[in-house]
C-alpha cells in the first residue's frame, strides 16, 4: 500500500532513489547543499524550500552548490549532460529564466536537431512557479507557455505527490531536456506514493474526475481548483470531467478530444497570463479537431493580462478560483444559439 507523503518528500525520494540507482545523476543549484564548506545537514537548507535536503550527505560530491550565476551553472548542467552526466539543476524561481534562457532554448533544446540527431542532452531543470505567496511580480509567474513554445524541450507540471515522484524519475531517465515545474503552493500537499521507484510517462493526461456534461482541461495547481469547482457543480447535477494535462509538451491531444467529443462543452483553466498560454493552445486544438462536437463556445479561465500584484487584496483576485471555474461551466452549459 502506498503511504501518504508530501509533494516535497516525493520529489526528494525520487532524487535520492535515482541517485542511488545511477551515479551519473548529480544535483546542483543555489544552496542545494546549503553553503559550500558548510557542514551540510544541520546547516544545509537543501534548496530554498528543502527539496534537496539530506542529499548532500548521502551522495558526497554529487550535490553541488552554485554561485548566483544562472547562465553559468544552468549552461554547465547542459554541458555536463552532453558528456554522459544526468544533471538535475535547480532554477530557483522560473522568474529567473531571464538570466539563463539562452542556454535552455538556444543550446539545450537545439543540440540534437542542429547536430543531425547525434547529440543527447538528458538534463532536468527543476523550477518553482505560480502565485499565491505574496512574492510579487518577479517571484510569482508561471511562464511555462514560453518553454512549451520551444521545439526540443519537454515541459512537465505534476499536480500530485504521486505524479511528482513518477514524473521526476521519468524526467531524469528521459534522454531529452526536461523543464520540471513545481508549483510553490503544492509542496505541502500530501497523497499516496508507493515507496518503490516508478515512472509516469510524458504525454499522457490524467482524467482525475469522470463526468459527462462538461470537460474541464487544466494543469498544475489549477487541477485542485477545478476539482473544487466540479464538486460544487456536482451538487446541482452538473457532472464535470476534469483532465490534468500533466505535460504541455508532449501534449496528450487524444484524451482532450475524446472527452470533448463526449461532453460537447469545454472550459480550460490555466493560471498563466491569458495571451498565448496553454488555454489558447488547447482552445485552438479543439476548435480545429473537435469543432463538430462543440455545443457551446470554449470558455477560458486564466489570470488577467497584468504582472502579478503584491498586495494580498489584489493577488487573491488575480489567481483564478473555483467560483470563476463554476461561472465558466455555467456559461457553457447555459449557452444556446
Amino acid at each position, binding site marked *: 500500500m502506498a503511504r501518504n507523503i508530501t509533494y516535497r518528500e516525493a520529489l526528494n525520494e525520487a532524487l535520492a532513489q535515482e541517485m542511488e540507482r545511477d551515479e551519473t545523476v548529480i544535483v546542483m543549484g543555489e544552496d542545494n547543499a546549503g553553503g559550500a564548506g558548510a557542514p551540510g545537514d544541520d546547516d544545509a537548507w537543501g534548496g530554498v524550500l528543502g527539496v534537496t535536503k539530506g542529499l548532500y550527505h548521502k551522495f558526497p560530491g554529487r550535490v553541488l552548490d552554485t554561485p548566483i550565476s544562472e547562465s553559468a551553472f544552468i549552461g554547465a548542467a547542459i554541458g555536463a549532460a552532453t558528456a554522459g552526466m544526468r544533471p538535475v539543476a535547480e532554477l530557483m524561481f522560473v522568474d529567473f529564466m531571464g538570466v539563463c534562457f539562452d542556454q535552455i532554448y538556444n543550446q539545450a533544446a537545439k543540440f540534437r536537431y542542429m547536430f543531425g540527431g547525434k547529440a543527447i542532452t538528458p538534463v532536468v531543470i527543476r523550477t518553482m512557479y505560480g502565485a499565491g505567496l505574496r512574492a510579487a511580480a518577479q517571484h510569482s509567474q508561471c511562464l511555462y507557455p514560453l518553454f512549451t513554445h520551444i521545439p526540443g524541450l519537454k515541459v512537465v507540471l505534476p499536480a500530485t505527490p504521486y505524479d511528482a515522484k*513518477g514524473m521526476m524519475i521519468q524526467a531524469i531517465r528521459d534522454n531529452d531536456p526536461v523543464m520540471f515545474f513545481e508549483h510553490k503552493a503544492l509542496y505541502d500537499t500530501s497523497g499516496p506514493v*508507493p515507496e518503490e*521507484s*516508478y515512472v509516469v*510517462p510524458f504525454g499522457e493526461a490524467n482524467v482525475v474526475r469522470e463526468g459527462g456534461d462538461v470537460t474541464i482541461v487544466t494543469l498544475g495547481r489549477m487541477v485542485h481548483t477545478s476539482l473544487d469547482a466540479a464538486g460544487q457543480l456536482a451538487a446541482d447535477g452538473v457532472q464535470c470531467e476534469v483532465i490534468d494535462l500533466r505535460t504541455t509538451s508532449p501534449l496528450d491531444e487524444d484524451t482532450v478530444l475524446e472527452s470533448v467529443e463526449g461532453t460537447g462543452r469545454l472550459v480550460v483553466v490555466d493560471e498563466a497570463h491569458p495571451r498565448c498560454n496553454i488555454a489558447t493552445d488547447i482552445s485552438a486544438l479543439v476548435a480545429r479537431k473537435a469543432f463538430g462536437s462543440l455545443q457551446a463556445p470554449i470558455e477560458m479561465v486564466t489570470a488577467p493580462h497584468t504582472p502579478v500584484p503584491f498586495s494580498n487584496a489584489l493577488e487573491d483576485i488575480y489567481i483564478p478560483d473555483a467560483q470563476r471555474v463554476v461561472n465558466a461551466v455555467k456559461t457553457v452549459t447555459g449557452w444556446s444559439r
Partner: protein
Amino acid sequence: MVPLTDDRIVAVTMPKWGLSMQLGKITAWAVAEGDEVQAGDDLADIETEKITGTLEAADAGTVRRIIARVGEDVPVSGTIALIAPAEVGDDALDAAVLEARAVIDAGVPDDAGGGAELQTADVGGRKISYAGAGQDGDVILLVHGYGGDRNSWLFLQEPMAAKYRVYALDLPGHGTSAKDVGDGTLGVLADAVTGVLDALGAGRAHLVGHSMGGAVALAVAARDPGRIASLTLIAPTGFGAEINAGYLRGFADAQTRRELKPVAGQLFADESLVTRQLVDDLLAYKRLDGVDESLHTLLGTLLDGDAQRGDSAAALAALGDAIPVTVVWGRADRIIPAAQAESVTGAVRHVIDGAGHMPQMERPAEVQAAIEETIARAG
C-alpha cells in the same frame, strides 16, 4: 459489530474491500424496507475510493431498516441496514438504528474484527508481502493470477475472515512483493507460497488459486501433498492448449490507458466493471521498476507460441485423490474457455453463470460457497 439486543436481528455492515479502505458510499439501494431477500441477492451498490461493486445479502430475511443514506460516507463495518424476521419488535430495531446512526455520524471507522495488516516474509532473498484476517480456524491461502495481486480477493477475504484464518499474498513480480521473478518458472512462484506458509507456521492449509495462481497451487500441492488440505482452482492454467494469448501479450505490452482498457475489459463478463480507477491501478503497477521485465518473463511460463504451456492435468493426476479438489469457472470466461473444467479430473466442478475470468470479483458469494464446501470435504 453493533451490539444487538435481539440476536435474531442481522446487521448488514459496510464491507471492507481492500486494505486501505476506510469509508464507503452507497450509490444506490437495490432493496427497500419490508423486502424479502435470499442469500446472494443484491442489496446495494457501493463505491469506494478504489472500486465500485455490489453488496450481496449474506443471509435470508426481511429488510426491516435502511440506515445509511445514498451518497453518505459510511465507515467500514458500520451498520447500514437491519435484516430481521417479521416478529422482531420495532423498539429493539430502533435502538439498533440509533447506535448505528451514531457510528456513521462520527465518521470514525469502527474497525472491529482484526483488520488485515500487511506483513512481509523473506523467501530466498525476495521480500514477499501477504496480508491476513481472522483469528482462528483453518489457514486458507489465496493465490492470485498473472498481473493480479492480493487485492483481487478483496470481496472474499473479509467475509471469510469470520470463520477462517484467510491470507492473500503477492506473488514475486506482483503487488508490493519483490519484482524479480528469476527465470519465471512455476517453481519460483511456488517457493513464495511455501515461504508464506512457513512464515505463518501453517502445517496444514487450504489453497485457492486463480488462473496462473491455480497452477502455482497445484505445484505446491504436488511438492508437499501432506501439507495441503484442499485445493480450489479458479479458471486454472495448464488444463488445455487453448488460451487468449492476445490478452496476455496485450496486458504485458500495454503502455497507456488507451491500450490497456480494452485488454482489461476481456477479464470480465460485464465490461463496465473496468472502471478508470481499476485501469489506473493496473497502469501504476505496470510502471513500477522491474514489472515490465517480469511480466514478459512469465509469458514464457504461460505460453508456448499461442497455446498454453504446462500440464496441470498431469500434476493433478499425480496427486491421486489424496486431496479434495474443486474447480470453479466463469461460463463467460474469454481468457481460458470454461470447457477446460472437464479435464480437471476428479474435481468437483462449479461453472458460474454471468462470470468471466474473474469470478472471485464478479460472483464472490458463489466462489466463497465453493471454497467453503471444499474445506468441508477436507474435514
